[in-house]
């Protein structure tokens, strides 16, 4: 079976019903595309096929045509220079990072068809699950990559350092009588 991934042609000898996700991960060796749910709910496996975002856990390899252009996170840019990757790094979007390949691929596909999406359009397009909850920075990073100037730095922080120390808590370095340890 022939697959065109990130501009290279690969010959893989796999069952046609094997999901593209596993052909990419286990036969072509591109592990940036992640397994999350296997039922196209979470989007951790998002790749581009002919420019459109697809959840590769639910695309059988047999349905991919030899001429179809598959792009994975590894092929989005040679040096993390895609505007979405740059915005993601600039705003420190990732926490654990596991879902972020898929988030970035979804955002890149959105911007390719809608270069300046509104918040509502981002809501509709960015349906990937992030269990760490990086959503606010994701939204800001999409705006940053779009160059709309909206979204700010993602986080909204109010520092209130004026509060005086009070003697209620145990002194520094003293262990509380009870604590949650797990």
């Amino acid at each position, binding site marked *: 079976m022939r697959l065109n991934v990130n501009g290279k042609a690969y010959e893989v000898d796999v069952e046609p019903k094997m999901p593209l996700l596993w052909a990419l991960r286990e036969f072509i060796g591109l592990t940036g595309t992640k397994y999350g749910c296997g039922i196209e709910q979470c989007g951790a496996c998002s790749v581009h096929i002919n420019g459109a975002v697809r959840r590769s856990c639910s695309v059988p390899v047999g349905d991919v045509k030899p001429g179809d252009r598959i792009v994975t*996170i590894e092929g989005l840019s040679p040096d993390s220079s895609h505007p979405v990757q740059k915005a993601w790094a600039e705003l420190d979007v990732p926490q654990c*990072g596991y879902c972020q390949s898929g988030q970035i691929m979804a955002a890149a596909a959105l911007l390719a068809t809608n270069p300046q999406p509104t918040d509502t359009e981002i809501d509709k397009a960015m349906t990937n699950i992030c269990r760490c909850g990086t959503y606010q920075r994701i939204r800001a990073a999409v705006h940053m990559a779009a160059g709309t100037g909206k979204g700010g730095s993602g986080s909204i*922080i109010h520092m209130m350092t004026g509060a005086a120390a*009070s003697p209620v808590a145990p002194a520094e370095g003293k262990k509380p009588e009870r604590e949650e340890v797990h």
Partner: protein
Amino acid sequence: MNRTKSGRSANISRRKFIVGSAAAGGGLALGFNLPFAVEPAAAQGTAGGNTEVNAWVVVKPDDTCVIRVARSEMGQGTHTGLAQLVAEELECDWGKVVLEPVTPGQNLARKRVWRDMATGGSRGIRGSHDYVRQGGAAARMMLLQAAANQWNVPVGELTVANGVITHAASGRSTSYGKVAAAAAKLTAPDPKSIKLKDPRQWRVAGKPLKRLDTANKVNGTKVYSIDLKLPDMLHAAIKACPVYGGKLKSYDESKIAGWRGVGGVVPVRDDAVAVVANTWWRAKSALDALPIVWDEGPGAKQSSATIAAHLKDGLTSSDAFADTNDGDAPQAIAGAAKKIEAVYSTPFLSHSTMEPMNCTVRITANKAEVWMPSQNAEASLATLSSASGLPLAQCEAYNLDQGGGFGRRGGTQDFVRQGVAIAQRYPGRPVKMVWTREEDQAHDFYRPISQCKLSAGLDQGGNLVGLHIRVSGQSINAYLAPHNIKGGRDVRQLQGLWKSPGDAQIGYTVPNLMIEYAMRNTHVPVGPWRGVNINQNAVYLECFMDEVARAAGRDPLEFRRTLMKNHPKHLAVLNAAAEKGDWGKPLPAGVHRGIAQFMGYGSYIAAVAEVSVSGKGEVKIHRMVLATNCGHAVNPATIAAQVEGSVAYGFDSLQNEISIRNGRAVELNFDTYQPARLYQLPKIETVIAPTYDFWGGVGEPTICVTAPAILNAIYAATGKPVRTLPLKNHGLKIV
């Protein structure tokens, strides 16, 4: 054309399977991916020009400072925060800091020089800030002394900034990279002689610096445990008896005989079965087709309804113990002018880490190794040793940064135990076992289920004269750590309702106060779920507090304030959230506010939510303002990220449940168990109000105020309290 070899065809013999599968995975074409490869990461002394000044600091000739980290990274930002603390005292160039993890084997071999590696309870920073700062300071003192010795000048005449040491009097300067080798030979200073900086003077710590571990998360090159490739690696998919406590009875291997790439079926311990193949997808597909017969055991008779009835009994039973019993709450309430009573409940919840449980194990006659995503690498090592039967000295565990942890990958290490059982069948070959999402949902250590009965009495003036809280529910300790239950009193389930200060103290003073717990265990495994028991207890107390305030005809914020005079830190954070959250100020029509405060993990937290509810039950959360006093704020940007993440994780408390039917979990994937999605999240504002007089946690506390603040806003919007979760059971849905 790039050509990669696939696994061989069906009907492979065992020997062929072993040969053939080595090529699968594209390893030959792309190179094997070997984190913690040949050199042990934390070698002592000077190697390849890199000098270990002390256990925490290695200096390279080009002045790069390698800062060692022993705690686990699961996205919470601990590695960057710990490096900031070391670098602050080290006075190195932050731009030249890199991180290096240590292994539990190295920690053991060096008499636990890096101390505790466990990462839970929001203690990555607060549990190690003193000794990591001392490590950085000691290294700085040694580096300066080495320069002083070289120049034959008193060390007191030297200054250092960004890793450059200067002797102003003679106009000389040098750098850390140049004096590191000499510094390493010096005796380490007495820890008692080390004076740490006043945190108010911090320049590296305390700042919203960017994380050190972002670059490879945006281009797909970061290697998680699930991505690991080792030479000759085999792949395993596993299924355990879906009913908790059930056993494996039999399976019919003939049904998958000859399946392409499949090498064998392995019974795992007494309750699971694995299929091993040359790729994971083939192993998983064959496992799906494998007929398995389970001995489901007595648990199969249990359901959500039987469990609820069991818990309900605990609300009025006589076997509870009172952790707090001030005055006479039942009598005060009975004699009060106005009585309020409510029963709340919260369901089992799953951790649902994005990276499912997995590990890779390789066992030879005299060595056992595991690569795993772990919140407790030392527990992983110990599990490897006990499960393999090899002594600790012949075991090593390589911890990879986790695709989410949330409490799931700590002490239990069930996945390592399984991985060892499978790998023992293939001596010398690494076997990577990966759970499906369905397996991950079906075999979690869930957030414990509980119910809570609350009663309050108000006097004529609307003052709270008595409060009685009875929690009935499952105990984490009873399931995982019975030795922590002292004298039959499991206080852990009352976390956040404790009177003792410093960690998870109740923030209200009530003259007649009774807080009780009745243990009601089930056959379902439970464990710490990010935030553990403060999440449920905050829903109970903080939502009920709104009910009582309403009965008293008082504003929820004002009502709380009257009870918090003896708790100034709780009160200050509540006030901070109220101020930044514009409490009391006008809102658009249909939008309502809710407020909540609590304490956990040594930190004080409060939240204000703005919510509207449509006639169709659509709940829209517009804005949340969440305040925290974690004592010292090591990285405000990371704190904000944790607060934002806590809101998303807190949504689980509102919209999810693991229900039980025929003894097993029902919600097995993200179609029925719905983690928060972007469109649901409100605008989130983080208020950081540190008082610089204690060290509190950050990763977990904020989750517990998210749900009650939102529920109280829903109550304000609808006039009806939501006492049982999830919301869908009330026709409500977050949109």
